[in-house]
C-alpha cells in the first residue's frame, strides 16, 4: 500500500519549499504522477505558447494565473473559464500579467461534472486523514464532508459517499446520470497512497473542485500546502 515518492516528485516538493506551497501546475504534475486524472494543461510563459496549446486542444479553455504569492486565485480574478478565442485568451493573458508575482498562465481543457472536494490533512492526534465533500467555492458553507484516516480501503470510499448529506447528487438525481463511482474510488485510493508517501512534507491538500461525472473524475484545481518543517 505504502508508496514512496519518486525522485522527480521529491524534486518538485524540494523546489516548492521556499514558497511554502506547490504551484498548481506542479501540484497537478505530482498528482498525475501519483495516478490521479488531471485535465490536459500547459504552463505557458508567453502568449504564443498559450495560443498554440489552446488551439491544439480546442476552445473553450480555462486559464489561471500562476503566481507564488497568490494562493486564492479566484479572489483576485485569477481564474477565467470559457475562453473561446485567441482574442479572449490574449486579453486574459494581459490581465494576469498585471497581477502580483505573475509567473505564467495555466491553460487547460474545460471539464464538466459535479464539484467535489477531495482533501488531506495531517492531523495532530490521528495523522494523515482524507476528506471527501461537496466542493466548489461554497465548500465552507455546505460543510458536507466525510473524513477517514489513511490508508483507505475501497469500502471506506463507499461509506464516505453514503456519509454525505447530498449523496443523492452523486447517485443520479432528477434525470442526471450517476457519477462514475469506480473512478472516484480509484482516485481516492491513489490519493490515499500519495498522502501516505508525502505525509512528512505536507500540512494539507485541497483538490477543489474535483469534477465528477459519468465519464470519470478529474482534479480541476489543486493546492498542496507544505509543512513548516520536515517532520521526523
Amino acid at each position, binding site marked *: 500500500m505504502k508508496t514512496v515518492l519518486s525522485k522527480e516528485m521529491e524534486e518538485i516538493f524540494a523546489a516548492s519549499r521556499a514558497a511554502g*506551497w506547490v504551484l498548481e501546475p506542479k501540484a497537478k504534475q505530482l498528482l498525475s504522477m501519483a495516478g490521479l486524472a488531471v485535465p490536459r494543461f500547459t504552463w505557458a510563459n508567453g502568449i504564443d505558447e498559450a495560443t498554440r496549446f489552446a488551439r491544439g486542444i480546442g476552445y473553450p479553455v480555462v486559464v489561471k494565473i500562476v503566481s507564488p504569492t497568490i*494562493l486564492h486565485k479566484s479572489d483576485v480574478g485569477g481564474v477565467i473559464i470559457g475562453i473561446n478565442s485567441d482574442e479572449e485568451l490574449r486579453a486574459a493573458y494581459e490581465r494576469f500579467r498585471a497581477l502580483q508575482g505573475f509567473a505564467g498562465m495555466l491553460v487547460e481543457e474545460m471539464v464538466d461534472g459535479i464539484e467535489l*472536494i477531495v*482533501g*488531506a*490533512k495531517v*492531523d*495532530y*492526534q*490521528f*495523522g494523515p*486523514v482524507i*476528506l471527501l*465533500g461537496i466542493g466548489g467555492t461554497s*465548500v*465552507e458553507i455546505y*460543510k458536507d*464532508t*466525510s*473524513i*477517514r*484516516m489513511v490508508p483507505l480501503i475501497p469500502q*471506506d470510499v463507499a*461509506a464516505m459517499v453514503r*456519509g454525505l448529506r447530498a449523496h443523492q447528487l452523486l447517485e443520479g438525481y432528477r434525470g442526471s446520470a450517476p457519477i462514475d463511482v469506480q473512478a472516484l474510488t480509484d482516485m481516492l485510493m491513489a490519493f490515499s497512497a500519495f498522502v501516505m508517501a508525502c505525509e512528512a512534507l505536507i*500540512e*494539507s*491538500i*485541497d483538490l*477543489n473542485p474535483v469534477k465528477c461525472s459519468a465519464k470519470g473524475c478529474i482534479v480541476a484545481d489543486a*493546492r498542496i*500546502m507544505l509543512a513548516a518543517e520536515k517532520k521526523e
Partner: protein
Amino acid sequence: MNLQALFEPQTMAVIGVSLTNDRNPANVIFTKNHLRYPVKVFAVNLRGGELQGERVFTSLAEIPAKIDLAVIAVKAEQVPAALDECIQNKVKGVVVISGGFAESGRQDLQDRIAAMARTAGLPLVGPNCLGIYAPEKVDTFFLPSERMVRPEPGGVAVVSQSGGVLVDLMVKFAGEGVGLSHALSIGNKAVIREQDVLTYLTQEPRTTVITFYVEGFGRNEGRSFVRAAGACPKPVVVLKAGKSPGGSRAVSSHTASLSGDYAVFSEVLAQHGIVEARNELELISFCEALSCYQDTITGTIAIVTGSGGHGALAVDACSAQGLAIPVLPEKVQQEIRGKLSPSIQQIASLSNPIDLTGSAVDEDFIAVAGYLSRLPSIDCILLLLLPYLPGTSSDLGALLSQVYLREGKPLVAYIPHVEKYRMLVEGLELNRLPVSPSIEGAVLMAEALRR
C-alpha cells in the same frame, strides 16, 4: 507492561500518610483499603509512627512483604524520590495521586518520573489522578467511603482522563443499575495511557464493555488508539470532551478548516467501529445496553406502550436515530389481537407502535412481547412501561425478563425512575435487561445495539 498488579494487588503501600491529619488523601486511601478491601495495606511516612493502631513504616524496604501496588501521595517535588524507592524495592505498579506536574507547568518533572518508570518497566498511573477503583479488590480514590457511590460489580470498565467525570459517571451508573468491572482515572497519563488500559481490559475476563472519557490525545496517539479499539472484540464507547473548535486559528486550506479536531475524532471513531457517545446520557445508555446484549441488531424496532403519546414520542426519537419502526402486516396484527384480553381487543392499536391502552394488564404486555420476540422482522422491542396504569403490576418487570430469558430477543424499556416504581425497574435490571428513565435514553439503548 503487565497491569495486573494495578488492578488486583495482594499488597499495597500508601506513601505519604499524615500522622496528624486524617483528611490527608493518603490517610483516606489507607483507611478505606485497610477496612474494606482484601488487599494488605501498609502506611509509609519518613517519620514512622502509628496510624489507627497500625505501624507506619519509614520506607518500603522496612515493610516485611513484597509490594504489588504503591500509591504515591507526596508533594510533587518528592515524587521522584518516592518513585525511586518503589523501583529499588521492585514494586509492580504505581499510582501517583499528587498534582503539580504538566497541568501546572511542570512538564519537566513529569517527564522525569515518566522516564524513570519507563526505564524500570514499571506501570505508572497518573500523576494528578484518582487512580484505580476495582470493585472488591482495591480503591485508590482519595474520597471517603461514605461519600462515594459504588455501582455493583459488573461488566463495564470506565477509563477517564478526568477524575471528577469518572466519579460522576459512577454515580450515574449506580443509579441506572449498570455494573462496573473497573474505574480508572489516568490523569496526566505520563506513562499509562488509554491504549495500555485497553490492551489489558481486552483480555480481562470480567470486562464486557470498555468506555473512555477522552480530552485529547498526544501526537499520533489517537491513530494507534483507534486501531487497537477497532480490533478489540469487546464494544468500545468513547466520549470526547472539547467539541467546539478552539479559537479561530487561521487555516490556509478548506480541508484544514473543514476537518477540525472534533470532526476528525468523530469520523475516525466511526471508521473503526468504535461507538461515539456525544454526551453523558448517551454514554450511560450505550454502556448499559451493550453490557446486557452483545449481539448486533440491524435496527428494526417494535414499540409497545400503554399510551399513544409515549408511542409517538418514541417514534420521533427512533426516527432521529435512523431506527426503523416497520408497520406490522394486517395478518400479524390479527394474530396479536387474538392474544389480548377481551377488554382491549377492540381498542388497542397494533400497527407499530403497539398501543395497548391504559386498560391493558400484565398479561397483555407479556403476550405481545412474547409474540414479537418470535417475529423475525423485528430485532429489538422497546417497552414503554407506565407503572401508574391500573391494570399492570410491579411484577411486570420480572415477568417480561422471563420472556427475554425464554426467547432471547433484546428488550429495552423506559420506566420513569422514582422510588415508588423501583420494583418494576429492578425486575428488569436484576435480570440484566436495560431500563432508562427517559424515552430518549431507551431509544439510545436500542441504537447502541446497532454498533
